[in-house]
């Protein structure tokens, strides 16, 4: 029953009087229809202004998809000026035809004019530009709302969610220490190695200390730590808030008078702003340690020598500048993470999309902010 019955067929025959006869047979059910479509498509195209008979008596079973197919070609033949007489339909088939046909609507043809095809790239560009502006606008609104809530909270500081802040510091800061250790150690190693090769040529081995100390503390440690935090914490903020949005938890909070900015956003933003500078200092130490190790193995600079040189060349301002970048980076990461979380709409796919967007945004903003710092501080001569 399974396979034998799953054959559909249609034949176009010429009878003695020259009248065209269409004989369809077999199972006209959805799984078998693909067998008759090419035949029908080929044959019906060339039949115009003829009268023909369509014999359906040998169709063993038909479903609604079969009816749609039948009606499609029947309509097409009639549109081409043919007179079609359908014979041999069983009462059950007629009934199904009537019921299904009442559900078939004439397709509303929506063809775009060819002009709009040419303009499509420009349309798209315009739409993207508008979406970008709307995005900026929405972000500024979000920042504004956040600031208002922050100011109100500063007037009533006991209303801060200290417990949530501490928990977020634990998650975003302490939890990230292993990966920060690993990455900053490797960065120190890489810088020392690359520097060593160049500096050895000039016999200026000892300068590797200057190089490691300044590049790690001032630029690399803040940047690498921020990127790790953006990928780890920013993305999780978007996903957490996005899921809460989908499950209507955010709505529930709002109606209970729990301002989401107070309960969700500010604790996260403040937590990251506290944790990131500390992590940058930690990354400074580990990065220099990595460099020190390579220097002693590869360049024969002993630990004491290294530390002595370090004390002479590493001005405190480099360390402070690196750490001072922390809160700015942290604010950008946490705000874009939370902001994108609130943009999640009701479908599950958008969580993935906005999580990606939030991380990409955060990393871009961090690097842009870093560039701004570089220019500014250089111009100021610091």
């Amino acid at each position, binding site marked *: 029953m399974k396979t034998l019955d799953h054959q559909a067929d249609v034949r176009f025959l010429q009878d003695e009087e020259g009248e065209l006869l269409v004989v369809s047979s077999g199972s006209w059910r959805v799984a078998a*229809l693909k067998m008759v479509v090419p035949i029908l498509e080929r044959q019906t195209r060339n039949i115009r202004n003829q009268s023909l008979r369509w014999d359906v008596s040998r169709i063993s079973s038909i479903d609604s*998809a079969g009816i749609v197919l039948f009606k499609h070609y029947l309509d097409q033949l009639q549109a081409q000026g043919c007179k079609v007489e359908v014979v041999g339909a069983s009462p059950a088939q007629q009934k199904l035809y009537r019921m299904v046909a009442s559900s078939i609507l004439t397709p509303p043809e929506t063809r775009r004019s060819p002009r709009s095809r040419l303009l499509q790239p420009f349309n798209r560009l315009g739409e993207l530009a508008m979406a970008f502006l709307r995005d900026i606008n929405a972000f500024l609104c979000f920042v504004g709302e956040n600031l208002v809530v922050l100011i109100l909270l500063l007037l009533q500081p006991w209303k801060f969610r200290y417990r949530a802040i501490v928990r977020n510091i634990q998650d975003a800061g302490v939890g990230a220490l292993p990966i920060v250790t690993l990455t900053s150690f490797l960065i120190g190693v890489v810088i020392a190695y690359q520097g060593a090769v160049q500096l050895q040529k000039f016999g200026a081995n000892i300068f590797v200390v200057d190089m490691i100390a300044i590049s790690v503390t001032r630029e690399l440690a803040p940047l690498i730590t921020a990127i790790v935090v953006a990928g780890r914490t920013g993305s999780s903020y978007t996903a957490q808030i996005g899921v809460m949005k989908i499950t209507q938890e955010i709505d529930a909070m709002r109606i209970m008078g729990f301002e989401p900015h107070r309960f969700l956003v500010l604790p996260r933003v403040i937590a990251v702003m506290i944790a990131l500078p500390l992590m940058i200092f930690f990354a400074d130490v580990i990065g220099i340690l990595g460099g020190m190790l390579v220097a002693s193995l590869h360049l024969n600079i002993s630990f004491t020598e290294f530390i002595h040189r370090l004390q002479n060349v590493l001005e405190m301002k480099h360390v402070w500048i690196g750490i001072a970048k922390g809160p700015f980076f942290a604010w950008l990461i946490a705000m874009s993470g939370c902001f994108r979380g609130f943009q999640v709409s009701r479908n599950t796919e958008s969580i993935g999309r906005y999580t990606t967007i939030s991380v990409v945004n955060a990393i871009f903003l961090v690097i842009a902010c870093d560039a701004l710092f570089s220019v500014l501080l250089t111009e100021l001569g610091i």
Partner: protein
Amino acid sequence: MNPVILVSDVVTRFGDNLVHDGISLKVQKGEIYGLLGGSGSGKSTLLREMILLQRPQAGEISVLGHDLMSLGRKEAAWLQRQWGVLFQAGALYSSLTVAENIGIKLKEYAHLPNNILGEIVRMKIHMVGLPDYAAELYPAQLSGGMIKRASLARALAMDPGLLFLDEPTSGLDPIGAEAFDKLILELREMLDLTVVMVTHDLDSIWTIVDRLAVLGDRKVIAEGNLEEVMRQPHPIIEQFFHGERGRIRSQHGK
């Protein structure tokens, strides 16, 4: 006549929690069969076992003459094309439009040209009573009733002979629920369906269900048409049909 679904002595256990302890029932061709029972009585689990989402620990389930406990991969694939399932929350793919949701199975299995496919999809959309513009909407943009209708259209995409409904009217307002019941009756008439539905909607039970089984105490307490079931003196049935809501409902009759 062979029953469409035959369940015999099914035992299901989740860890220490015994859900079914020897459940047996029969669904005949062309009927609308109701699975009733309180929350946690295992009716949804039984439904999941019938559609190959779960496997009972013991017993036998056969659907359309195929034993589900010893099913080959090909047989399973064939069987899965013979039924449509309406999940409780719709389970529409949220990244696809309604039209794509309905068309996805057709596209995968029927290999029809796009214009015919589009026509079939539009016909199904109209058949379940959705407006034309719903085709291009995403599930997130639909109301509860529209989600139910869209997922019914998806369940019917391949013109299955067998339709499983998991609480089809839950979450609908009384008017919407009644319209949905009527729709199921019409579709049964039109497409020769056999319908198995999990429900606790008293109105549905009175108006559209032909035969039903009541699950409770890990067993089938009663099976048969409504009068037969109501005559059973079991306390759960007492509560269900002769409780406050049941009494009011039974005064109205069909």
